[in-house]
């Protein structure tokens, strides 16, 4: 299935939105975390500033999110992992509440109790988890619920290539294939499990071949290609919706930033990221759209300005929102 112009434009716009969101977050995250404002002797203070804690950003990995989510509606489930912003944005999670959550504010998606690795937005059926590989079984369960209700809704689990070595991955693939669940497993291969390259963690060069072990279709998308992801996901979603069962897709993608912000990246050559950035998927898709006459500089600038305004609004909303009252910490252990 070839993408329509409208779909390509949506993907392009969402990629720009994700990239600019992540770049904004990278800057805001550093506020208050660097000398001389922190404890003497420290180079960085992870708990300081308006956005404390770990921060895993997805700049460079946009194709995985937009090429899949373009096929989804609010009724389809997405379970993300510890690097979740690109999926949340592509799935339509509201930016204001998502950003406020990362600031720990009471207006956040989770009233400030989740933080950036634990975003929950039931209206778009989006959730994520900070535990590597944990989302795959849960996506199976969402798919099982869809199947039991007789709907054609699907569930997607996104995870890194490091998660493909977790038991949860293998158990979930077997279960999904056994029960012919409407689920799509999307492996984002950014080549690093924190610092360890895939060649040192994984017994096969690409994870798509592991699908065969479970009698499942496996597809490889190379070169961080949004249109390649679009096509692979289109077929996988079609199969899932029509009762033909699960698919495993591995997407070779690029992580432009550290595993988390503040990562000195001693494990990769200084030349690596500049080289990766020369093959930027946003630039490539933008060029392709221009060639087809679907985008010009004026439209591009207007689209960028609108996105910048949306992002500014989200960060302003987060900054201006109140923190939860301390007593809130004692609520929501159980649903009343």
């Amino acid at each position: 299935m070839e993408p329509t112009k409208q779909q390509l434009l949506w993907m392009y716009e969402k990629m720009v939105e994700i990239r600019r969101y992540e770049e904004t977050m990278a800057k805001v995250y550093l506020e208050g975390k660097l000398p001389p404002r922190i404890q003497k002797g420290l180079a960085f203070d992870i708990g300081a500033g308006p956005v404390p804690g770990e921060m895993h950003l997805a700049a460079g990995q946009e194709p995985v999110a937009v090429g899949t989510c373009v096929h989804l509606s609010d009724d389809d489930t997405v379970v993300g992992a510890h690097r979740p912003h690109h999926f949340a944005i592509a799935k339509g999670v509201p930016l204001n509440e998502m950003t406020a959550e990362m600031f720990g504010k009471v207006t956040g998606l989770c009233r400030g109790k989740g933080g950036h690795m634990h975003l929950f937005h039931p209206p778009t059926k989006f959730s994520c988890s900070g535990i590597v590989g944990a989302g795959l079984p849960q996506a199976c369960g969402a798919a099982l619920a869809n199947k039991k209700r007789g709907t054609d809704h699907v569930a997607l689990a996104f995870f890194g290539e490091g998660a493909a070595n977790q038991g949860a991955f293998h158990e979930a693939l077997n279960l999904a294939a056994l029960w012919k669940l409407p689920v799509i497993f999307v492996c984002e291969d950014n080549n690093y499990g924190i610092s360890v390259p895939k060649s040192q963690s994984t017994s096969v060069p690409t994870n798509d071949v592991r699908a065969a072990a479970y009698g499942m279709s496996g597809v490889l998308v190379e070169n961080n290609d949004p249109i390649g992801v679009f096509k692979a996901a289109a077929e996988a979603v079609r199969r899932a919706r029509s009762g033909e069962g699960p698919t495993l897709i591995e997407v070779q993608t690029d992580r432009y930033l550290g595993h988390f912000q503040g990562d000195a990246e001693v494990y990769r050559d200084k030349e690596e990221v500049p080289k990766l950035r020369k093959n930027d998927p946003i630039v490539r898709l933008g060029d392709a759209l221009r060639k087809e006459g679907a985008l010009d500089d004026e439209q591009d600038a207007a689209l960028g300005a609108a996105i910048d305004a949306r992002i500014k609004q989200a960060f302003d909303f987060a900054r201006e929102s109140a923190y939860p009252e301390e007593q809130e910490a004692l609520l929501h252990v159980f649903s009343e």
Partner: protein
Amino acid sequence: MNTEVNMRRLTMAQAVSEAISLELERDERVFVMGEDVGKYGGVFSATSGLLDRYGADRVMETPISETAFMGAALGAAASGMRPIAELMFIDFFGVCFDQIYNHMAKNCYMSGGGAPVPLVVTTAIGGGYNDAAQHSQCVYSTFAHMPGMKVVVPSNAYDAKGLMIEAIRDDNPVIFCFHKGIMGLSWMSYFEGSTNEVPEGIYTIPFGKAKVVREGCDVTIVAVSQIVQKSLLAAEKLQEQGIDAEVIDLRTIVPLDRQAILQSVDKTGRLLIVDEDYQSFGLASEIASLVAENLHNLRLRAPVRRLAVPDVPIPFSRPLEQFVIPQVDDIAKAAAELFEDQRMAVKEGV
């Protein structure tokens, strides 16, 4: 409940499967999944007869993949279903605990209440039949220690049925622990007190309401599950010695009926907590702390006493196993010893 209630004697296993059956009948969102829950009816008969009645879509056999099916149960619960997932032995939580304590137990909290998890995990606990260290544990205190899970530990068929229906209707994760030695199985000795009169039809028992299963005025014995049955037998022995024991069945440990414990201890002035879980850092210690924190309102006539598994894995050899798990005679002896201890009485005199 109907005015004309048809009572039958049921084993606890029959009561559990009847409760699940009634809820499967009532609510399409309810389904059962787990290892051997279909034709076999559950290794401990908790799902007996359900496959024939409701079919393989509602009573689902799973592969031996606890991480996959516990996670799937959670995913289905988050998507509007009300699954009952059987973890064959509670000892097996080690192979899937991430799904349980990092997700099932935390998603409601981490989502600020927006993503509740209505899910029942049924699981078999306890020893006494020489299944050794990996198939005899109770470890419910481990689940109770982690916030976000309700923990149900019934001692008899009547309670098990009402508590199971309550569990299925609860919007939270519930760990429903049935002790193998009170299920009334045809292949394992059990305590007959656990097989009792159970009404037909639907009824619920609220969580967090302990039951005084034997009234007494000299000493309070607090217990759950099979130990309740043992404590009742011990109380008869104590009666022969002129000691009138009150036995409290907590029925659930999360939520914990603290008031019932304090009221009874206030009455008797003596407390023995008997537990088949490991002694340290668990249920017995929690109750001892509760009493310690309320000493300004209580007058103890003897120090609080814990009788539990003495912080060793459950050994295989029969005499060793029987030694580490509290038995009827051990309970009677420990309770009687509370009357030999004169230290508190001396202090009272001062």
